[in-house]
């Protein structure tokens, strides 16, 4: 009987351990997804503020634009 109980405890431990591991992984995944918000916002900001004007190929304006952008960082 003692052996069966011990096996049961072990099985419970394994199950708990694997649930905890999966939970920790899931938490990491969620964090990763949340962090995408900053990346996406930064890239969109760069595209709208810098890259679109760059596409217009106006050298003087580009220089002014870069200076203004860096002042606002």
């Amino acid at each position, binding site marked *: 009987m003692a052996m069966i109980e011990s096996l049961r405890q072990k099985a419970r431990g394994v199950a708990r351990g694997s649930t905890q591991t999966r939970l920790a992984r899931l938490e990491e995944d969620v964090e990763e997804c949340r962090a995408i918000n900053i990346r996406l916002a930064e890239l969109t900001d*760069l595209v709208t503020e*810098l890259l679109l004007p760059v596409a217009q190929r106006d050298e003087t304006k580009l220089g002014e634009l870069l200076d203004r952008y860096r002042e606002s960082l």
Partner: protein
Amino acid sequence: MTRLRDVRVDDSGIFARSRREVVVDVLFDDRRVFSFWLRRDSQPVEGGHLFAWPRAIRPHLDGHTEMTMVEPATGDELYRGEVRLGKGDDRIAVVNRDGAPLALDKSMRKVLTFDTRSADHVEPLLDAIADVLGTLKEAGVDAFLAYGTLLGAVRSQHLIGHDSDADLGYVSKHEYPVDVIRESFQLHRFLVAAGYHVTRYSAAAFKVDVIESDGSVRGLDVFGGFMRDGHLYMMGEIRTPFRREWVFPLGTAVLEGREFPVPAAAERLLAATYGPTWRTPDPAFHFEMPSSTHRRLNGWFRGMRLDRAKWERFYSVPERGRRGPSELVRQVARREPDLGTFVDVGCGRGSDVAFMARRGVPSWGLDFCRRAYADREQRALRHVTFQLFNLLEVRHVVAISAILARLPGPRVLMARHLVDVIGPRARGNLWRTGASVLRQPGDRLYLEFCTRAGADGYAEKNRVTVRSSRRMIDELEQSGATVLRRRLLLTSPDRPEASSQVCRIVATWSGERPPDDSSLDKPVEHDLTGDKTAEHQTNAHEGGQ
């Protein structure tokens, strides 16, 4: 009435016994200096509680004072007695270098608080609150008083005496974090264009510096918020079930005789922030937020100012004596006589930048801590440009790289003791900067970092952690760089057994190859190009592993 028993005040702190938890204001010669919770903030000893003197105040505790302890909620005096601390005979004075009275805020940091300031001093802050609110409105958001400033206005129509800054908040019309962040960038730009000095805390909160009539600078914090799934999220640490109509249309409250906008149901926001007892003053209040809220706001908006507070503290102390240029920058000057542009990434106070500029080379100093280079920036040295640069913000990396890539070559990026204080994400962005800027023949990256911490204390003195040179080379090569040289040097060559070790690497993204390509296939422990001149001219001497 609360009673404190067996109060004992000595160099170790304040000991007292009390049947229940109590918030205590501590006054020296009738001026409040700090507040604490007897049980929460103390160690249980001898059947009572010992509150150790906060670290920030210890240097001032040398002399006599009449100390009073008052319960702020009731005004009841819990203790009064003449105490002597340290060995001094003068009255204890908790003041700054200019003699202005200081107090400790709820995080036990020294601050100039409102209760030590005259109305003349507070007026510019009220002006600034009105101006910033106006500018934010022009930029498209209806901001309002928030946190302690809202609490003061609603509870007593005054700034809270023990507070040291003013807080504003707004609720975005957007409901996705990404849009809230983009809006925050726009607001930041708008404020800078309006002439304000802005420091970003996170992707949705920033500080606007306000200069007061006596020249002191006070921060005005602007916290972004938004509604999502029936909850209000606001930077700081709020996530609470809320309705948009509890915010809009904004109402008003009087603060120091002036009317300011507040949320429509301000008391609901205050209850969400300070709990149901928000009407009772508690100068030692600490936010207690569920970890899920913390995780959410961290994941969405934070992670761009790792370690900044530590370096801000370090650079808040004025430079002691004149610090000469580093051996590394001297080496750059010797090896690169035709340099077109020099850039020091992680320039700190900027002494290497000034050195290179004195040689007539247009030089840029980049650091994520503006305070570090502020002194040298004010001197407006010839050929010198300083720029805030945060390797944890993609916008900084891309925009500044675009600017540097347009400057005259050959270009050198130098990073001395930078890769040994930053993590993999920031390092990845450093390599990205190199890859964008150093693409022409003659362009170089000069790195110096600690590879072994010895008993000579070099690593501690420079506040760096050890990095493996192999790993740095792997990272560089994965980013497309070619390593031209690697050299390992002892920091204490006369005591090799106690010496730390630094590694110097020269790399480029221009496609140049080192003189002997095959030597890069294995770990290298000596100078790759055979240049021996540096040995005689550096403090750190060549050494083996």
